[in-house]
């Protein structure tokens, strides 16, 4: 008689347990940040957190689903414009109108996917870019939202914004500073929610299907994974979050124009560099990447176009010599997984 064998499948590692505790402490610190941080730090954190959200979305598409989109600016822009439309045409408060951005982006993602999924690989990249251009040029025709020159949020909408009053009295701030606190908290919630969502997705059955499709599409289909369906789910979900992020970014800016809201460099180019430098196909990568990106931006702020030139060279070098990015290097040296998704079989006799 063989001994009865009990087994379980686990993804947890010792490092991930510690990381979870450290992350919880960091989150508490981050929530409390407005109590002691100045306005400029909060504004920097807003940029970091919103870029992190965009990077996680693009990483989900390119790193896990193999969908290398160069058209994510379509969803940032449409999300931002939908938020503006909600405020200007229907008198919505800007905060709930951000969600309208997510809805608009998800709706736009459906015809986009319909076209772009006809194109494989590199042609998918160009196809998404063309669609983003079509959306930009069409929105520039929308005269009641300022056409090609753009428009601003009405003053009364920004001054009466939800939650601003209680935040102002809580911290004893002026309205403008309280709006920064609100934007920071929303960006923090969105970034944490996105990371949690991506992590949960990758640990689920669907995540396993996604990894199977990425590693071998034919073999995955042979065991019954519907690759096309997974691509649809991931594409629309990433678009929705990107749209919400676009709405949030332009709630903070309060001024929009088609060229800025649909800028390929700002909303897709930088994001690609963040993910590639940090480490594509990992959750840790974009987090590390956004820190490096922001540090470089600060360091080279006075050198104009040299900054982008150096960023491009670093991106190329990382792709050629360390294709799994900085986090890949760290992982290879130390074996640490902060967000483990690899399943391990643990057998007890």
């Amino acid at each position, binding site marked *: 008689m063989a001994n009865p064998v009990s087994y379980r499948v686990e993804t947890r590692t010792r490092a991930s347990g510690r990381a979870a505790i450290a992350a919880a402490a960091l989150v508490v610190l981050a929530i409390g940040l407005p109590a002691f941080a100045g306005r400029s730090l909060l504004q920097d954190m807003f940029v970091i957190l919103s870029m992190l959200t965009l990077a996680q979305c693009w990483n989900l598409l390119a790193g896990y689903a193999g969908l290398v989109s160069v058209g994510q600016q379509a969803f940032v822009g449409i999300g931002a414009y939908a938020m503006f439309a909600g405020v200007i045409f229907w008198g919505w408060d800007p905060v709930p109108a951000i969600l309208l951005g997510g809805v608009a982006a998800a709706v736009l993602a459906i015809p986009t996917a319909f*076209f772009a999924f006809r194109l494989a690989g*590199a042609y998918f*990249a*160009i196809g998404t870019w063309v669609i983003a251009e079509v959306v930009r*040029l069409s929105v*520039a025709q929308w005269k009641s939202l300022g056409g090609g020159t753009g428009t601003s949020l009405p003053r009364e909408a920004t001054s009466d914004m939800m939650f601003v009053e209680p935040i102002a009295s809580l911290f004893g701030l002026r309205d403008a500073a309280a709006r920064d606190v609100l934007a920071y908290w929303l960006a923090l919630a969105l970034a944490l929610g996105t990371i949690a969502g991506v992590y949960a997705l990758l640990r689920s059955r669907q995540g396993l299907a996604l990894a199977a499709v990425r590693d071998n599409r034919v073999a995955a289909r042979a065991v019954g994974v519907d690759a096309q369906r997974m691509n649809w789910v991931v594409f629309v979900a990433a678009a929705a979050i990107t749209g919400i992020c676009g709405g949030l970014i332009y709630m903070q800016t309060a001024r929009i124009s088609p060229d800025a809201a649909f800028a390929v460099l700002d909303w897709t180019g930088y994001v*690609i560099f963040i993910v590639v430098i940090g480490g594509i196909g990992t959750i840790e990568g974009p987090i590390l990447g956004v820190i490096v990106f922001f540090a470089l931006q600060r360091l080279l702020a006075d050198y104009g176009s040299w900054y982008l030139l150096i960023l*491009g060279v670093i*991106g190329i070098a990382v792709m050629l010599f360390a294709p799994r990015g900085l986090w890949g290097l760290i992982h290879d040296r130390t074996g640490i997984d902060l967000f483990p998704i690899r399943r391990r079989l643990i057998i007890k006799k």
Partner: protein
Amino acid sequence: MIWVDTIVQGVLLGGLYALFAAGLSLVFGIMRLVNLAHGDLIVLAAYLILFVVTVLGVHPLVAVLLAAPMMFAIGWGLQRLILTRTLGDDILPPLLVTFGLSIVIQNALLEGFTADSQRIPMGAIETASVALGPVSVGLIPLLTFASAVLVIFALNQLFYRTSLGRAFRAVSDDPTTAQLMGIRPASVFATATGIAMVVVTIAALYLGVRSNFDPTIGPARLIYAFEAVIIGGLGSLWGTLAGGIIIGVAQTLGGSINPEWQILSGHIAFLVVLLIWPRGLFPRAFD
């Protein structure tokens, strides 16, 4: 009559887009490499021509003859040092490396030549026009179109009539077997990229003569070029010409209705073709 004129102008504009696209089509056909820096390389070549014209004071056509070998060398070196390392089954490395390259070229040009828009001076020929039946067309657009036809004819001859072309087709079909026959794929790829850069130089001449250019206009040219390649069908050079013409005609037709719709209608024509013929009009390669 105005419609005939618009369509003729569109066809001639399509010649320019076909020139933008021919190099892209060649490189993709041979090594399945999609170069996102293609548009920026066209702009780089335009600055190179302008630089030669200004420094040596020669005619732009002479400057092209000097710039073409330099661009060949740039293409050859780029392929040898960087792009070859990205080839493989994974599509991510070539895309991301050429995207990085696009950013590098744009910003290097900004540093070197500022953001001011430039033009390659061609003299009286710039405004000359000829009567073509009922319509009158500019000499430069006509030359552009003739060059596009000539370039595509020459590339087809190269591809199907020479031993280099045979090597191109061999490594395109199966690099490993080609190696057994004594062909070095890395060297063939480098030559192919070099030739693509010579085509890019010709395209750059017309880009710089016909309109103003500055370091940031590369990506838009890349998109037109890609649309032409995809409409034509992957691997078909004459198809690329047809694709360029479709984009050109759609743009001039749209622009004649409302100037703001010019670019938009080109993109929409592309999406419509994609909807009806997902593999393009004249697909050759199966991939």
